[in-house]
């Protein structure tokens, strides 16, 4: 079935059944492989994207449910985005497999609350898993991104 998807500001026609998880359409049909598969049940957050600005697990949402909605993936977050800059400045990443999802989770958190308190940070970040254990650096990265935003960085 032909479906039109709005991803990173562009419209893509895709020919898939409506029950296909968005994750696999992004990865295999649109070749946007920055969004990762890890658990497939919405437990780990590696597949997190934004749907109308809200952090969403793309592995458990059917492509038929996101027609006409604005989808943003890690590739759609500009290079100048405070989260991307902070992640490089604080050298947050280890293996990096979970980090696109982690960064999308953080970007959504910061667009909601420009200076989240520690409880709010943990509330949002407990939805994602990093097996390399970069949580201390993720905390640092969030603080850095919040500072960069204060200095006028856009959050996209």
């Amino acid at each position, binding site marked *: 079935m032909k479906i039109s998807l709005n991803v990173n500001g562009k419209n893509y026609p895709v020919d898939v059944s409506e029950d296909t998880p968005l994750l696999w359409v992004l990865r295999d049909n649109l070749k946007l492989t*920055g969004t990762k598969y890890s658990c497939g*049940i919405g437990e780990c957050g590696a597949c997190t994207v934004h749907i109308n600005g809200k952090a969403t697990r793309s592995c458990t949402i059917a492509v038929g449910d996101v027609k006409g909605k604005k989808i943003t993936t890690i590739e759609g977050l500009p290079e100048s985005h405070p989260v991307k800059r902070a992640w490089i400045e604080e050298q947050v990443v280890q*293996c990096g497999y979970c*980090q696109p999802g982690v960064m999308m989770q953080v970007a959504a958190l910061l667009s909601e609350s420009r200076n989240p308190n520690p409880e709010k940070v943990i509330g949002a970040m407990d939805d994602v898993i990093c*097996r390399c254990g970069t949580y201390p*650096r993720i905390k640092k990265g969030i603080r850095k991104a919040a500072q960069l935003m204060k200095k006028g960085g856009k959050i996209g």
Partner: protein
Amino acid sequence: MNPTLTRRSFLKITGLTIAISATPFGYEIINASDQKGSFKPNAWFEITPDNKIMVNVGASEMGQGIRTALAMLVADELEADWKQIRVRQADAHNDYFNPVMHVQVTVASASVRGFYDPLRKAGAAGRAMLVTAAAQTWKVPEGECTASNGTVKHKKSNRSLTYGQLCLKAAKLEVPKELRLKNESEFRYVGKPMPRVDIPEKVAGKAIFGLDVRVPEMLYGAVARPQAYGAKPVSFDQKAAEAVKGVRTVVPTPHGIAVVAESLDAAWKGRDALKVQWDKGSHPDISSDFVEKHYFEGLDKPGKVAISTGDAKKAIDEASKKVEATYFVPFIAHATMEPMNATASVQNDRCDVWAPTQGQTVAQMVASKISGLPPEKVHIHTTYLGGGFGRRSEPDFVIDALIASKAAGKPVKVVWTREEDMKHDAYRAATCQRIQVGLDSQGRVTGWNHKVSCTSILRFLNPDWMTKEGIDLFSLFGILDPPDPKVYSRTTYEFPNWYVEQVLSDLPIPASPWRSVQNAPNAFVVECFMDELARAAGKDPVEFRLPLLANNMRARRTLQTVAEKAGWGKPMPKGKGRGIAQHACFGTYVAQVADVSVNEANGTVKVDRVVAAVDCGPVVNPDPLIAQIEGAIVMGLSTIFKEKIEFANGGVKSANFDDYKLIRMSDTPEIEVHIVKSTEAIGGIGEPGVTPTAPAVANAVFAATGARIRRLPMTPEVVLAAMKNK
């Protein structure tokens, strides 16, 4: 005619190319410039006239920062400008053999410790050849020329040439026999925090992991696997699978039945349509309780003597005090965030594998066998690894892709689901251990009797590496170690009468190296028991350990450093406790202090802070080093509180992150890492940090509550039971 001379005469040299060639006695640095164009260079670095320097890294990047660290070693001795440096992942080749491990493999925290000297020498060789080339160009003595930051300068005449300008001339020179290496004070990059070269593309979402590989005409494979160990298919509906739209072929593999299709969705639907009926397998009784009982019962079986010095039994019998305890550590999963996967293309005249592998040589061996092609026609392309931790040193996930591609006649990417990854891991081996120790009237150890009931890692990894007496030293890392490969995983303690006995399990549950191999579980047992002994002797746990480390300056220094940094010995408020542990492996010494708060009513433990001290000898890139220790501590905490593989119906019951929990941010404490300045031999950093975390936390729980934790994971039920037993 000499073929080398032919190449030298007719091929156009395109740059200065330095290779490190493995020999039976070690390695040699060779000028491989003349080989360029004839076959793919297996060079460690190439300097080209465009003034760029390409460093080819044979080790696998899984977040430890190896591409950066190895390039820093080359760049520093070469006196290159870091801006000139590009880093590329090398394909499998014997010239990337790790000098410590004797194959191309990224394990045993061996990359920097294996390549520290060879890459510095390779860089120094390049620098000397560039200086010679400049001196010859200017017709001045070499001693008047200096290499600095990518150029060679002649101060007297105020002339300079870039490495790009000199590389073609340098390419015609011999590698000097005598190489001058820099002093530490001359290092330009080594020892300073250099940003990792892999991070920008990972942050951009553009890094290619195994699962992201896409090659022309690629098909997808999914494998139906049995629930029970040793189970064989009784029946399956091949026709129904082949009738699914997009399915191309169905082929058996050693691990199950593969369905190859035009999309992953079709492969999964085809696999469901197979409706495989499996038999009960070889050990239908396997369940969580069965497995645990099996290891405890192992302690009552006769074992094999791994080491016996003096007479431990007599010393213990005659001691004024006898202390005994039994510990249990369960199977745990690697649970890399990127599930297992590989893409293979088997053709008549060549074979390609794209894989997130830690073991290029073994992948090349299995690909050669399955394709029927000689190794030089097998090209192993290593992608980024979404976590490794030892799991990806196994070749099982590569084998399925090779068989599927051979059957389909096209490239095939085999993707494992999380459930397959969890249920078909080769786990960190479970172990049950009993230690008896005698103390004299002054509280000193007189004899140490240690019985280890465990799974053999080598039975699954390489049975040829067992000792001739049938001892698996890999399962004893942290207590004993083999002379080769050099893993420096013998205990740091010296006991006057020492006896270690091993009982190996015959269960089919596979085990493999898991970040530190068995150092972490063995350190948990030994370091917790050290705490028990210190209390029995009425001594402070640091003071108790020091005499046993009398001949190990590095272990003593690391332990004392962490004690000082963490405020060891200061009183803690009620409900809080502080514990300490130390361990050394892969040439690196780590000690940690954990502060915990215990809720005695419900048995929950919160770790408030972990302080670590680490002595790994010379430091190459300090920031990733600290990140490795931080990450290892977090992973260690995950194993203490969360992780245990559950078994049922002859196989694994745990399936995904909803029933196999991993640590998240809310359980992550403050972490401080202190690097001990050291000029001792270089050690690895990827694994040792995980080893003291579990015992430091368990010892802290004891300090807070008086309850001794002798089993993992330390769930609230385990803590409450331990408090009841105190």
